[in-house]
């Protein structure tokens, strides 16, 4: 390559090389828009080939439709004024996207007219986007700032709220502390009370007249009292249920009673456990969590030594047995012999005083025997030792028999004794006929004893499944204040216990009658009584269902 001197002329001549290689768009267009030249950077930037571009019209094919007028106006202005102009416009790329280009348009003039323009284009798409972004950013930032400001104010409010809360919390804390102190005081007080209560309870349990055992739900013994040791004559500190069971072995099956109580959640009472020298009573009860709950938390076991009571009970029984036999035997001898004397020897003695003495002894022995018999009868009734038959019998017949037996007694006092028998036949009664007769005889006897004139009337009525027997007398009657005492032990229709009753009875008759009638499922009561006019006694007994 020959050396070329680089001066203005040579540099101007090498401008073609510059245009071919520069990273700027170079475009030559005729004033009518025909494209004369485009440099390689144009093709590279737009994706077109030379065939797409050269000889084509710039305005029509490479400018966005809405910009065509602006571009033509710019060209016209250059052609008219013949000077360079800067413009910015879009170019439609081959892929239809757009390129924003800043143009420097230079007219090439020949013979005083513009032959074509050379436009140097700088791709400003990126710069524009940045600007747009910047603008967008600014807006976003402003919005964010506003948002932050808002958030800030919210935060501020929140902060105040938090502070208030903290304040409240502090007050609450103080209140809590106060409350805690109160509670602690109360707990202390309550603990003291509980301790006292516990002490009282333990002392009660210890002085309880029974062996006392508390178990938990699993049958472990959690509490016992001292008496438990005394009852079994041992010195255990720790107890188990099987030990307790062991001490009763052969007399009662303790564990089965215990298990029954646990299973059925009901208390179990076992009387009269005979340990040979000792009698025990066993009571097992469930401990409920609360009075309304059926959840149990263990059991209470009470073991009571009832040996002394048993001995007493036996003594009482023995006393009545002695009364029955030992007391009655000599009395029988007295009475029997008096009767013999009266029957076989009285006629041989003509002394009235002697006769009187014998009669008095006889009457006294009669009365004494009667007393003893009634005591015995009462005691047996009270102890439930008398069994009552449940037999069907006719009350009418029973009344007639009783009247037959008592007629002479009544007649002896000049009194009548009658039965107003109902016309229709009454259902039969279910009771013990002999005991019923005893009651009726007692009522008839009373009516005779307490009457001096008139007599006794008996009626029988069947009402509501019961036979009612009315015994009405015309006797002296019973004072109202004494009426409610009639069926009690040792009561006579007399206001003073020292003023003897003319009946010379034991005062047990009506009480015994009541015990018997009630045992047979009936009732006995005073229907009415008028002083000086008489009384009506009634007893009722269940009748057989038809």
């Amino acid at each position, binding site marked *: 390559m020959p050396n070329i001197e680089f001066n203005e002329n040579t540099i101007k001549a090498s401008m073609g090389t510059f245009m071919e290689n520069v990273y700027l768009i170079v475009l030559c267009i005729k004033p009518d828009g025909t494209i004369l030249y485009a440099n390689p950077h144009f093709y590279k930037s737009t994706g077109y080939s030379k065939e797409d571009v050269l000889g084509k019209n710039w305005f029509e094919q490479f400018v966005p439709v809405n910009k065509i007028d602006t571009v033509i106006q710019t060209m016209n202005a250059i052609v008219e004024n013949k000077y360079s102009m800067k413009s910015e416009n879009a170019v439609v790329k081959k892929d239809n996207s757009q390129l924003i280009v800043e143009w420097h348009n230079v007219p090439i003039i020949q013979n005083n007219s513009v032959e074509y323009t050379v436009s140097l284009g700088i791709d400003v798409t990126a710069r524009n986007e940045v600007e747009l972004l910047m603008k967008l950013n600014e807006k976003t930032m402003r919005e964010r700032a506003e948002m932050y400001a808002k958030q800030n104010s919210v935060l501020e409010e929140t902060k105040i709220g938090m502070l208030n809360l903290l304040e409240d919390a502090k007050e609450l804390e103080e209140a809590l502390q106060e409350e805690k102190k109160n509670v602690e005081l109360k707990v202390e007080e309550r603990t003291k009370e509980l301790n006292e209560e516990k002490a009282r309870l333990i002392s009660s349990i210890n002085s309880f007249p029974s062996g006392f055992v508390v178990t938990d739900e699993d049958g472990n013994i959690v509490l016992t009292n001292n008496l438990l040791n005394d009852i079994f004559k041992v010195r255990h500190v720790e107890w188990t249920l099987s030990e307790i069971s062991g001490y009763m072995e052969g007399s009662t099956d303790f564990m089965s009673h215990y298990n029954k109580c646990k299973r059925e959640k009901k208390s179990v009472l076992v009387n009269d456990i005979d340990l040979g020298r000792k009698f025990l009573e066993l009571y097992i009860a469930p401990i409920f969590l609360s009075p309304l709950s059926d959840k149990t938390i263990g059991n209470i076991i009470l073991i009571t030594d009832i040996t002394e009571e048993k001995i007493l009970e036996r003594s009482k029984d023995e006393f009545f047995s002695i009364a029955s*036999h030992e007391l*009655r035997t000599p009395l*029988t001898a007295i009475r029997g012999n008096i009767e013999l004397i009266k*029957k*076989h020897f009285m006629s041989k003695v003509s002394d009235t005083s002697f006769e009187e003495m014998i009669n008095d002894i006889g009457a006294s022995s009669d009365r004494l025997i009667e007393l003893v018999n009634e005591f015995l009868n009462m005691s047996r009734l009270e102890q439930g030792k008398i069994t009552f038959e449940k037999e069907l019998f006719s009350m009418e017949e029973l009344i007639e028999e009783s009247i037959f037996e008592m007629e002479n007694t009544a007649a002896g006092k000049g009194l009548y004794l009658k039965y107003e028998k109902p016309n229709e036949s009454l259902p039969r009664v279910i009771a013990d006929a002999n005991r019923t007769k005893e009651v009726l005889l007692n009522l008839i006897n009373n009516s005779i004893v307490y009457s001096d004139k008139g007599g006794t009337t008996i009626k029988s009525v069947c009402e509501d499944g019961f036979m009612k027997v009315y015994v009405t007398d015309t006797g002296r009657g019973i004072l109202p204040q004494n009426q409610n005492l009639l069926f009690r032990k040792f009561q006579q229709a007399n206001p003073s216990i020292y003023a003897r009753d003319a009946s010379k009875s034991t005062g047990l008759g009506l009480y015994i009658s009541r015990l018997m009638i009630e045992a047979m499922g009936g009732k006995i009561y005073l229907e009415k009584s008028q002083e000086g006019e008489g009384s009506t006694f009634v007893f009722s007994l269940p009748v057989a269902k038809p």
Partner: protein
Amino acid sequence: MEKILLIEDEVLILRMYEKIFNYEGFAVVTCENGIEGIEKAKTEQPSLILLDIMMPKMDGLRVLETLKQEPLTKDIPVVILTNLSSDVVIKDAFAKGAAGYLVKSEIVNDKIVEEVKQYIKTV
């Protein structure tokens, strides 16, 4: 003359009943305990036996049982004459073959004689 055997450990009572029945024209054989009573019943063959319950050596109910098992005495009516009056004992006595049951303190002389005559008549 009807013969009565009285088995009773209380001498006063025994003596009294002996008199009562003697006055009424009965022949009375007495003994103070059950074992002797059983022997007398066999040998004397009375028309009726009046038997107490509470006695030493052998109580009346066991005496009754023995009398009722013994071929020589099993047909002789035995009437219990005692001061025991509980239901249990009365039931037991009848179950063991007693013909009657009289409570001493609840029955007067004439009534006893009447009852005894009744029992003898029934047999």
